[in-house]
């Protein structure tokens, strides 16, 4: 990526050759240990205990019955597909909305900047259920939005915006937007303005600079935001349950049902494992597609 190349050359100019830091790379790797132990003891170990039961039959012995049930009952594949589909849509929409918003946020000054900041953080401060009910009130056929659109003459008949997939998308997009915007904004905030100026001074037009310098520099933030958005969406079910329609059944709902209503933990564990594998698969696919190994590797 050209942006990175320019960055490297600028950095190389100031680099000291006998670099003590490079030698300590493995020791520095140990910094990652406390967090891993933490997650390991308090989540991974308990999770493993639960996931292991997914490989038991309903009578306790070792078997693949649970997975067989998932594979042979069509509804589970359908639900998983629907979950992935909706989550991907949400991520894509959030990227399209969130990226320009992040740019606007970084360019804003003074009170306008404060307003944008407050706006992007406000969803966090409102309880999820409260937001869901808030959306229902706004999106009703005779709710705020429809009344406004009708009054403005944009539409003549109210739109069905809730109790269907549209409602789910609207609700989830709004909830996930901060997760997309903030990492991108942080990345922009770190951007070396000299690179942009250099590009312009070398004769590149503004759009070209954006495509070849600006955007690539923000990619780690885009990836971070997209990752959080996609992964969190896959585990969602409160919003779909309250704002969705007949077809909006997502995998997390089924897991919750099996864990807390019929107490079939073996089956829930199997469903959870399938979801986990699916998520990892999506993550790996996205990583190789975006070729963003660089998120974790040092920019040399």
């Amino acid at each position, binding site marked *: 990526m050209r942006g990175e190349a320019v960055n490297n050359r600028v950095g190389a100019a100031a680099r000291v050759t006998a670099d003590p830091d490079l030698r300590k790379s493995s020791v520095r790797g140990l910094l990652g240990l406390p967090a891993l132990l933490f997650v390991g003891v308090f989540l991974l170990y308990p999770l493993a205990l639960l996931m292991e039961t997914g490989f038991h039959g309903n009578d306790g012995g070792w078997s693949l019955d649970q997975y067989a049930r998932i594979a042979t*009952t*069509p*509804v589970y594949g*359908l*639900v998983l597909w*629907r979950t992935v589909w909706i989550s991907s849509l949400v991520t894509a929409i959030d990227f399209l909305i969130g990226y320009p918003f992040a740019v606007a946020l970084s360019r804003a000054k003074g009170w306008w900047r404060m307003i944008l900041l407050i706006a992007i953080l406000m969803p966090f401060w409102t309880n999820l259920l409260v937001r869901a009910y808030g959306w*229902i009130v706004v999106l*009703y*056929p*005779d709710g705020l939005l429809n009344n406004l659109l009708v009054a403005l003459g944009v539409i003549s008949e109210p739109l069905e915006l809730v*109790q269907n997939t549209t409602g789910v998308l609207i609700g989830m997009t709004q909830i996930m937007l901060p997760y997309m915007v903030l990492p991108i904004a942080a990345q922009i905030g770190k951007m070396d303005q000299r690179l942009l100026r250099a590009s312009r001074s070398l004769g590149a037009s503004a759009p070209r600079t954006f495509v070849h310098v600006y955007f690539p520099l923000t990619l780690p933030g885009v990836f971070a935001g997209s990752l959080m958005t996609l992964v969190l969406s896959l585990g969602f079910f409160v919003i779909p*349950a*309250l704002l969705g*329609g*007949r*077809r909006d*059944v997502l995998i997390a709902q*089924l897991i919750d*049902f*099996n*864990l*807390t*209503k*019929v*107490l*079939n*933990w073996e089956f829930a564990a199997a469903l959870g494992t399938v979801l986990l594998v699916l998520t990892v698969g999506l993550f790996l696919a996205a990583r190789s597609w975006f070729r963003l190994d660089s998120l974790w590797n040092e920019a040399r």
Partner: protein
Amino acid sequence: MTESKPRKPVSSRRTLLKSAAAGLMLAPLPLRRAFAADAEVVYATWGGSWADAMRKAWFEPFTAQTGIKVRTIDGPDYGKIRAMVRANNTEWDVAEVNPDFQWIGPKEGLVEKLDFSIIPTDQLVKGPNLLTDYSLPEAFWSRVIAYNTNKFNRDNHPKDFAGFWDTARFPGKRVLYSKANGGAFEAALLADGVTVDKLYPLDIDRALKKLDKIKDDVLWYETNAQAVQYLQDQRGMLGLVADGRVKFIKDQGAPVEIEYAQSQLTWTSYVVIKGAPNKTNAMKLLAFMTSVDGQKAIGMAYTYGLVAPKAYDLLPPGRAELLSNGPQQQGKTVLMNEKWWGENLATAQEKMDAWRLS
């Protein structure tokens, strides 16, 4: 679960000032493990105005009589019950549950056998599945057909589920519970002409075919609060909703009325969790609550149906009609087979989810 009374504001200005002062002086309440210094019973409830009513009708009198305190916690989640018992860390004594737990609980080893030497049962209503070795019935409630009074009226409204299904004669959206055991299947079969005695075991495929006929006119709800919101906002013209909730919004002025024909009668139950820290006290509380006097008290405080028939005689005139399964409903109810649901919920829900996605 089901219904709520109007929530009265708790504070007057004087109480507010007093509690503000107290609040400033009190150290913040830290999370800490329970020290059961006093005799107590831990009661897991659905909370809200129902819990307020129980406190007034049962818990405070019980404490006055026995010195045993009742501490409530909100949200009797089955998953948590299982987690507690499996971890040998049972935090609750009594939980109010849906009747399916009467079978799920023992099957998973999550409940204690009731001590019938402490709990008398002769005064309890007799009926299939109501009383088991592990559970007592708590209260009756029913799902009823609610209709919008602006669009329909006393003479012109669905008088049974066949009418509920008639979208030509009674146009508008219908509100139904999205859970498999939310009454939609029973309603569909009754609408299709199945007689009550042949209702169970439910023919789910037939019910789903019938649901197909109105599927574009259905608003699915996840919580009772949602259901009545639709009725109140007149999004739904008809609904199959918990009777207590409909009565509540009706009292608040919503344009709804109830049709009791074919009302689906069901109940909630108590269980004592396995490993309960205060088992004997819990049994005593259960005995207190299901006694005739206890039932009369709750009948005065709330509108659920009583489980001790003699208690109805103790109520002042006119009160019984306000309760679920009261005189106004006699002869019109269809009793849900909760045993069937306890055993078949998983498969039924799976079929329903498949149908929803189709």
